[in-house]
């Protein structure tokens, strides 16, 4: 274990960590928005649209992220899509995660009790208000744990981006390991960085969950 090497490479490692966090958060943002739109479109009950979305989700979920990333980065230029490595990485993470987020949202929507929607229908609320005011809040509360889970998994998928030369943490670590022959130190440092990231996300998720579900739990002595 050589702290001297780690110290020398610290600027590169920290910059790599920054790129990792950036790719992860931007990819997740794209994935969340895209996944939400897919889940909404899915609710329209237009059969051809449903089949198309289902097929897309199955393809994305059925193939490794690495393969998708290669297709986007190396195959993209053949159809005139030339992306810089980091952009390709972010877009790739976004598309990949959107399939999983879409499924989580879809399940969340079906978890909204029919009675809540019936009550809103019976007072004459329109479908847009029912979606935004009634279904959505309940759906988000129901989905939050699996969203946090997906975010954590996604944060670790970012290591794959090193293969298309995105200068994220894994990439910097590999460079350090190759230049200084300190494979163990590199792997150890990686583990610490990722553990910090995941721990932060899961704590944040837990606090958020407690906040949004506070009104649902029957609190003792607060009746």
């Amino acid at each position, binding site marked *: 274990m050589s702290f001297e090497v780690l110290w020398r490479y610290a600027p590169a490692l920290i910059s790599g960590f920054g790129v990792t966090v950036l790719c992860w958060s931007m990819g997740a943002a794209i994935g969340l928005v895209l996944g939400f739109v897919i889940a909404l479109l899915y609710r329209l009950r237009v059969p051809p649209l449903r089949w198309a979305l289902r097929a897309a989700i199955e393809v994305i979920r059925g193939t490794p992220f690495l393969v998708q990333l290669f297709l986007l980065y190396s195959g993209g230029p053949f159809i005139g899509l030339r992306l810089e490595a980091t952009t390709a990485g972010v877009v790739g993470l976004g598309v990949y995660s959107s399939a999983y987020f879409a499924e989580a949202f879809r399940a969340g929507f079906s978890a909204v009790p029919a009675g809540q929607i*019936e009550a809103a229908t019976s*007072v004459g609320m329109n479908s847009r208000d029912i979606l935004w005011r009634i279904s959505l809040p309940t759906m988000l509360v129901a989905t939050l744990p699996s969203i946090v889970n997906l975010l954590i998994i996604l944060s670790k998928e970012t290591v794959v981006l090193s293969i298309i030369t995105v200068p994220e943490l894994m990439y910097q670590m590999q460079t350090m390991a190759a230049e200084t022959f300190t494979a163990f130190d590199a792997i150890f440092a990686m583990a610490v960085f990722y553990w910090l990231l995941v721990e932060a996300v899961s704590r944040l998720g837990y606090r958020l969950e407690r906040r949004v579900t506070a009104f649902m739990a029957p609190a003792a002595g607060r009746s």
Partner: protein
Amino acid sequence: MIELRGVGKSFGALQVLRNIDLTVDKSEVVCLIGPSGSGKSTLLRCVNFLESYDAGEIRIDGRLIGYELRANGERRAMGKRELREMRCEIGMVFQHFNLWPHMSALQNVTEPLRRVRRLPAARAQERAMQVLTRVGLAEKALSYPGHLSGGQQQRVAIARALAMQPRLMLFDEPTSALDPELVGEVLEVMRSLASEGMTMLIVTHEMGFAAKVADRIAFLDAGRIIDYGPPRQVFHESREPRVRQFLQTYHDRNSF
């Protein structure tokens, strides 16, 4: 006020409503009773078109609900906007309250006032507090449904419907999901509504309440109204064997 003529409905091969005729006049209280699966709830839900009907007509103040008649006599589905307009004049109370869990009691009542009646926030809140006071829950206005008892939740649900100032109210087994001790407070609110002249159509298993409050009782069995009349007549003088058998079972179960 509510007029049903020859109403019929099937779920696939199963006919749940057959040729139902029923009229509820203004300020009248009509209770629908009968064994489970007889079609009471389905009938009630057809009145505000939460459930569609296949045959016959349901009219609210003379206006057909759910369908539009065309010049050639055909009918087609009513426009969404028109249907919403009709629904907001019909209050409905559900067996499982169906309050929105992410909103306080007050917000549950103001939400439809804001979104449907388009009242400004202050006016909505004022009216919501009036109805919550009326059902005896002013001090629970800021509580969330999860923190209220079943009886309190159901009273909030009644307040939510009432705040819309509906022309009539539908109740779908409003006390069936409640602990026996909490049934009274809900029935009390309903009784006071009836005495103030609200038009009410109620599906219930509370025979005592039906006997005291209803103007008419309709007994449903297998999708048909097999007996209809004032409570005394249906409860004590019915000649229908099915009705007598049902009431006998009810008596046996409730005497100890």
